[in-house]
């Protein structure tokens, strides 16, 4: 087990490096820098600014410094846009917000999705099953950027129950709509996957044996069926994680939460390369870390996997 984790960790390092280098190269071949504006700056001023941010150094040195700073001091460098803040400040300000409702959405999508799927599978071809399947089909065409406007239309404009945006320290009224908007479509996918995989397991031979020897249904489900039925669901968790990260960009902007996604798109529009690079690397690093976690979970669930 320890070797498996170590192996995966070693593997994550080149992945991170490739990602950083690729992003770095992309940013530097891009036409137009963060300091190109409508009114060109005098060359002397431009040279001074570039020296201040180290942009006058050769590329390999810039890249080396950048990676060294991240690895040694966890420092993503200064922001090109805001003079008084560096990238770490931007991340420290936005990330806790995004993390809060992101984690809540993830929990909501997995728990409700799995419960719905199990319910549908165990009560196959009943009203509950049809309702769950119907919901999961409709909800698939309701991605976050469709759910957001619909929710605001109903709960803010028509009923006036919930505030249309803002954060205010994450009070529950401000959390409900972002979480629903972010989790609905993945909840549906998880429910579908859980249902079909549970049905497949319930039809397999070892479950028939368990039934034949007279085990009560709840013990069959909990002790025998649940673990193998969760395998496809667990392998779908990493995509869900990526969707939550990407979707948070929408939620941050649409519900004005002040989260990291807002900083991400602003930096994209303002060509604030250091913030863009920093957030991309953070998102990528989180994804890699989460892939590791799901790998471990998968190895624990599936006895066929040996490390």
């Amino acid at each position, binding site marked *: 087990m320890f070797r498996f984790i170590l192996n995966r960790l070693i*593997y994550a390092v*080149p*992945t991170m490096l*490739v*990602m950083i280098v690729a*992003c770095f190269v*992309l*940013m530097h*071949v*891009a*036409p137009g820098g963060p300091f190109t504006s409508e009114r060109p700056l005098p060359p002397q001023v431009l040279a001074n600014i570039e020296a201040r941010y180290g942009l006058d150094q050769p590329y390999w040195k810039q890249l080396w410094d950048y990676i060294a700073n991240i690895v040694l001091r966890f420092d993503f460098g200064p922001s090109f846009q805001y003079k008084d803040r560096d990238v770490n400040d931007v991340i420290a300000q936005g990330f806790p917000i995004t993390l809060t409702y992101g984690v809540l959405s993830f929990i909501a999508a997995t728990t409700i999705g799995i419960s719905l799927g199990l319910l549908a599978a165990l009560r196959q071809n009943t009203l509950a099953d049809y309702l769950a399947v119907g919901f999961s*089909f409709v909800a*698939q*065409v*309701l*991605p*976050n*950027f*469709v759910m*957001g*406007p619909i929710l*605001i*239309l109903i709960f803010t*404009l028509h009923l006036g129950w919930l505030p249309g945006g803002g954060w205010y320290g994450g009070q529950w009224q401000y959390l409900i709509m972002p979480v629903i908007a972010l989790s609905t479509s993945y909840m549906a996918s998880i429910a579908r996957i859980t249902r079909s995989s549970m049905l497949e397991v319930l039809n397999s031979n070892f479950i028939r044996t368990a039934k034949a020897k007279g085990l009560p249904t709840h013990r069959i489900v909990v002790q025998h069926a649940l673990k193998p039925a969760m395998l496809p669901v667990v392998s779908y968790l990493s995509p869900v994680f*990526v969707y939550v*990260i*990407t979707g948070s*960009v*929408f939620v941050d*902007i*649409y519900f004005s939460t002040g989260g990291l996604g807002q900083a991400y*798109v602003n930096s*994209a*529009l303002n*060509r604030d390369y250091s913030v*863009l690079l920093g957030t*991309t690397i953070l*998102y*990528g690093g989180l*994804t*890699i870390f989460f*892939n590791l976690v799901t790998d471990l979970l998968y190895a624990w669930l599936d006895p066929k996997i040996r490390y």
Partner: protein
Amino acid sequence: MAFAANAPSVAKGRSLWGDARIRYLRNRAAVLASCVLVLLIAFVLIGPVFAQYSIEEIDWGIMGQAAELGKPTLANGHFFGADDLGRDLYARTLQGTTTSLMVGLIGASVALVVGTAYGAIAGYVGGRTDNIMMRIVDILMAIPSTLVIILLMVIFERSLIMIFIGLGLTGWLTMSRVVRGQTLSLMQREFVEAARASGVSDVMIIWRHILPNLLGVVIVYASILVPEMILAESFISFLGLGVQEPNTSLGALIAEGAGTMAYGTLWQLMIPLSFFMLTILCMFFIGDGLRDALDPKDR
């Protein structure tokens, strides 16, 4: 003649594709979805003929008073109403739907070609080459693809071509994995061995024996990719990072409609939203039908 009628009729062999077609046609939801999609494509192709305005033409009489004067009506030629600037929503929705369909089909085709070629080569060559090729895929998969596309759109120009490149760059990864796995199992089969024993070249084996057998799996995965790509493009356009004005896409139109829905111009949201949901729903049903028809697991 009576004798001939009594003779046991020779059972006609059913090919894989004939089988698949029968199964697909039996799936009512998939057939209905295909019909709707065909109608939608026809509408998108023929619809512009009836448009009274171009996508960027501003109706000055409506501009600023969209809530009162811009309602969907046959009278003034704005069949789907007008947006806040007084532009014709009929023409714009048609263009947005075209964009979405094109993104889905072209993006998925690029992913299909690249992913199949990559996966088939990795699986066929095997050994260290396969190992390295698949590690590269693993690395690329760890990066959230929508963010890559946003990055590309920011760094290079914002255009439809760039979206295709971005979607194509990120979409082939899963496909290549699936194809590689399938190729590895095909390599164990007798007919490949027979072909090799009779001296067929590697290229011909891949072309004549591996690829045709991959087709089913590839089509199923491509049909899953299409709605995913449409969703990704709409997402990016919603954020305002997609195609540039005056060109538009369903995501951008939904964003515009969502921005003005508080002012009593609900059709600006609902019309593009309906088109979007209809398109995605059709794609999902068709993908489901294709999977049921072609997935060898269910046989």
